[in-house]
């Protein structure tokens, strides 16, 4: 970092806010139209029934649950970067963690759409929540789907609080550097934050606890999501490897999405001083590590199926490679196992184009990995008379695009409304301004 002063930090980070240029408005408009158009797909499905999608016995889950797990997985990297790395005091966290945390919340908001989309009677989806009712009907808390409901809602609440509290000091900076209505608005949001010693004292304590609380969530939420499959007795699903396998996959796709989002952000908003190549290199290393875990997990799954000599398991795994979904398996292996290996070379790891392209490939690969687990296991179940393959329809394609549009819409709004780099944290990481030479300055 060239020698920046605190004033430079405020100026640079607050510059992109509030003044939308034509490029930004163009992208925002495009995202909104795509969202509205594909939103109609969802309405079409609600009115005419789930039959407009491609599901049929025995494959009752497909694109929607794949996309649900995909978006929940993306969320975890944000919490990892902002909470876990806070506890480990790693230095490269400061520039990236605010936008990563924002990505988490928007990813979980996108994932929260899917229980309503995927459920047959969306107008009774609220029955999944335990509220007192005169029919004395409650939920089956032993069902993995109920664990999901609690896990996702807890994760969303905790991440939002953690994100909002982290923003308060920066909102105060925005308040102080704006005038008129925005000043009044941000003043209300900053809740009168002035950075007094009392406020910082309790704030740092609370921030530490939030990080401590959010850390187990990184592991538990995606384990609960993997239990949707691990608790079932479908061949190819019920294995104890699923929780770590899914968590590694989550961090893998999450870091890739962080790279995908941060690169254009730092270039377009000229934040290279705060989010520079050094950050992306760390993210890339994290991806390569978790990619390795995934490759190992794929191998283990096949070995366990072969070694168990259970013909249903082995039949399903063989069908994944030789059956009609052979190309899903091929895409998955290429994107998750082979593509990230290029990041072993420093030249690729530090080149912006290399980072962006491979991060996209990783996320495509992760979507296919979940589709491979879900659809091919259900299509090749126990009873050979029930083997019928599932093909998605345009409605599912539309709703998948809607989830991306929904996610990018929130991210675009965030970038314009809130500072996308944590001003307070960056200042904390800089050397404080000293009047006298360092040797006899304050310790």
């Amino acid at each position, binding site marked *: 970092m060239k020698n920046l002063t605190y004033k430079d930090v405020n100026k640079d980070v607050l510059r992109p806010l509030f003044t939308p240029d034509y490029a930004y408005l163009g992208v925002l408009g495009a995202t909104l139209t795509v969202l509205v158009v594909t939103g109609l797909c969802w309405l079409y499905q609600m009115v005419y029934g789930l039959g407009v999608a491609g599901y049929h016995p025995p494959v009752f889950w497909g694109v929607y649950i794949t996309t649900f797990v995909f978006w929940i997985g993306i969320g975890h990297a944000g919490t990892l970067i902002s909470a876990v790395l806070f506890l480990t005091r790693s230095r490269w966290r400061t520039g990236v963690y605010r936008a990563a945390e924002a990505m988490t919340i928007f990813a979980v908001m996108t994932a929260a759409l899917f229980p309503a989309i995927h459920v047959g009677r969306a107008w009774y989806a609220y029955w999944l929540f335990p509220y007192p009712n005169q029919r004395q009907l409650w939920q089956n808390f032993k069902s993995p789907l109920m664990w999901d409901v609690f896990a996702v809602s807890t994760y969303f609440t905790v991440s939002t609080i953690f994100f909002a509290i982290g923003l308060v000091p920066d909102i105060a900076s925005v308040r102080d550097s704006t005038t008129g209505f925005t000043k009044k608005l941000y003043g209300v949001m900053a809740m009168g934050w002035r950075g007094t010693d009392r406020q910082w004292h309790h704030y740092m304590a609370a921030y530490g606890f939030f990080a401590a609380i959010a850390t187990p969530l990184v592991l538990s939420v995606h384990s609960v999501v993997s239990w949707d499959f691990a608790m079932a007795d479908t061949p190819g699903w019920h294995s104890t490897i699923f929780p770590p396998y899914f968590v590694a996959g989550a961090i893998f796709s999450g870091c890739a999405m962080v790279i995908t989002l941060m690169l254009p952000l730092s270039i377009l908003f000229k934040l290279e001083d705060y989010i520079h190549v050094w950050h992306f290199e760390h993210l890339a290393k994290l991806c390569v590590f978790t990619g390795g875990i995934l490759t190992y997990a794929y191998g283990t799954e096949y070995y366990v199926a072969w070694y168990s000599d259970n013909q249903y398991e082995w039949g399903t795994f063989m069908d994944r490679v030789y059956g009609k979904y052979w190309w899903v398996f091929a895409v998955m292996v290429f994107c998750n196992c082979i593509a990230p290996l290029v990041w072993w070379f420093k030249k690729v790891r530090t080149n912006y184009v290399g980072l962006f392209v491979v991060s996209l490939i990783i996320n495509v690969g992760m979507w296919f990995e979940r589709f491979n687990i879900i659809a091919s296991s259900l299509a090749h179940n126990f009873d050979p008379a029930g083997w019928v393959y599932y*093909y*998605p329809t345009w409605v599912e*394609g539309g709703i998948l695009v809607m989830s991306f549009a929904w996610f990018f819409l929130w991210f675009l709004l965030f970038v314009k409304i809130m500072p996308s780099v944590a001003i307070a944290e960056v200042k904390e990481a800089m050397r404080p301004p000293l009047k006298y030479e360092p040797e006899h300055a304050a310790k």
Partner: protein
Amino acid sequence: MRSLPRASVVFVLVSAPLWAMSSCATNAIANPADEAIFPIGSKNLLPNAVVDMPMSASPLEIDKMTFFNEDLSVAVGAPPAEAITQPIAFPHSLHVKDLGMDCQYCHSSARKEVHAGVPPTQLCMGCHSLIASDGKDGNPDRPELEKLKAFWADGKGDPIRWVKVHDLPDYVYFSHKRHVLGGVQCQECHGQVQEMGVAQRVASLQMGWCLDCHAQHSLDDSYGTQQELRRSELKDCWTCHK
């Protein structure tokens, strides 16, 4: 890519939005004419015009209404008293309280069968062909009996289209026989009918209301001896759901 399965969507690797839009309707309906022959129903997602208040805000219902009475969206109970007009204003109080007739004289299949049954016109005419018709006993103005005679038309008239006051949804299996033989009094569910003129619904007839009795009667929810187990059948969903 002919080798790919016919109806599959080709996943374009480069960009998800393009891929989604290009996954054209490959498995659209093969024979459009079939769409007319096999029409699929649609769901009216708009909330109903009437504000979701309990039907007849009788005192009984308010205290029973717990925090969130959400199954109003299910056809239950019956329209409020003022909304229905019966073809004949049959006074229950006169027949039951003053004349002392038993409920099952008219509703004869209550102890035999699922439906309590509504008496055929023939049963009414059993008495009213003699009693108090066309002013024989010096009391000419009895409009309701004129209507009854019109319906009877000596055996060839139309059936009387009574409006259902206690109308459970079609998916409910409520057997009068099991309740009557089980010792439940008519008044417990239908209210003090002998006091009423035209019969009206008193109880909410909603699931929670039924469950209160069922829960109370299935005293022993644990699975002890045979008899307790039988009683826990009262909290078995398939006992009342079809």
